[in-house]
């Protein structure tokens, strides 16, 4: 593989004269353009950085995201659920309270606390069951009664 005695030895002068040219000042303006490209790439990284990961990593991010959304949803919706689930216990609480704590207060007195409600006047002479029904139908809990009394 003689590299000297071949056609290229005739073209030694070609090596010295570069036939390719560049625009004037090209190399002097190159560095700032490269720096701009790097800055642009840093800004673009963001979400794209996540999608550049391998599938296992992407899947992990997805699972973490779903769990996070589920936890947040649970925390937001929990009060709505607990009010329904606790409806039976709130009835018991109201009955217990009325039996043991408020026995000295008659129905009328109790209902007069909620005098703005037109239904209250209809059941002012009613029995305990009606009182309880009224409180439940109007979503009035123990705390409401206590705060009014």
């Amino acid at each position, binding site marked *: 593989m003689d590299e000297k005695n*071949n056609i290229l030895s005739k073209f030694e002068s070609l090596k010295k004269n*570069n*036939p*390719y*040219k*560049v625009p004037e000042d*090209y*190399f002097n303006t190159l560095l700032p353009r*490269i720096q701009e490209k790097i800055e642009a790439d840093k800004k673009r990284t963001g979400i794209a950085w996540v999608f550049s990961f391998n599938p296992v990593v992407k899947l992990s991010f997805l699972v973490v995201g779903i769990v996070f959304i589920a936890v947040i949803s649970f925390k937001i919706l929990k009060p709505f659920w607990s009010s329904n689930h606790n409806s039976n216990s709130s009835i018991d609480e109201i009955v217990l309270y009325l039996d043991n704590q408020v026995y000295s207060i008659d129905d009328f007195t109790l209902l007069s606390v909620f005098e703005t409600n037109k239904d209250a006047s209809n059941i002012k002479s009613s029995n305990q069951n009606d009182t309880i029904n009224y409180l439940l139908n109007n979503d009035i809990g123990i705390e409401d009664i206590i705060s009014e009394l």
Partner: protein
Amino acid sequence: MTEYNDKELFDLFLNTETRHYGFNLLVNKYKERLYWHIRRMVINHDDADDLLQNTFLKIWQGLERFRGESSLYTWFYRIATNECISFLNKQRTRFFLPLADVEKKLEHSLETDPWFDGNELQKKLQKAMLNLPEKQRLVFNLRYFEEMPYEEMSKVLQTSEGALKASYHHAVKKIEKYFESD
């Protein structure tokens, strides 16, 4: 201005306070060599400019993880070479061009490129090179124009020295044949 060697430039880059300074010095040191390497492969100046910028972007992104298994210079060349090969492959797939037609496209670029200022002999040599398979053309460029030692070329192209020597020998034969037949 202080002249730093590659190790010192790399250390400047690793230090977050001098990272940009170190990187800028690296760009200034290697920009022309890398540019001409790319330009000889893709012919067109605008394409070479894009690929050179992409090369330095990848250097910026990956230099922190550079393990020093080769010289910085070799690693930079490898990135630039891969950029060229990816670019040429994309040209093929994007335009559904068979192998020979990409080279025809580059030949046409040579004829019409305002930034090619060679005489007829130089143009003929460039066309002869465009008739070489891509990898062979790479070897030829690195050996003939850049006079890169085979040992170094072996690290850039990750091919054995023997294979590179054979590739260069075949490239020269093909160029000779091109000139004889034309």
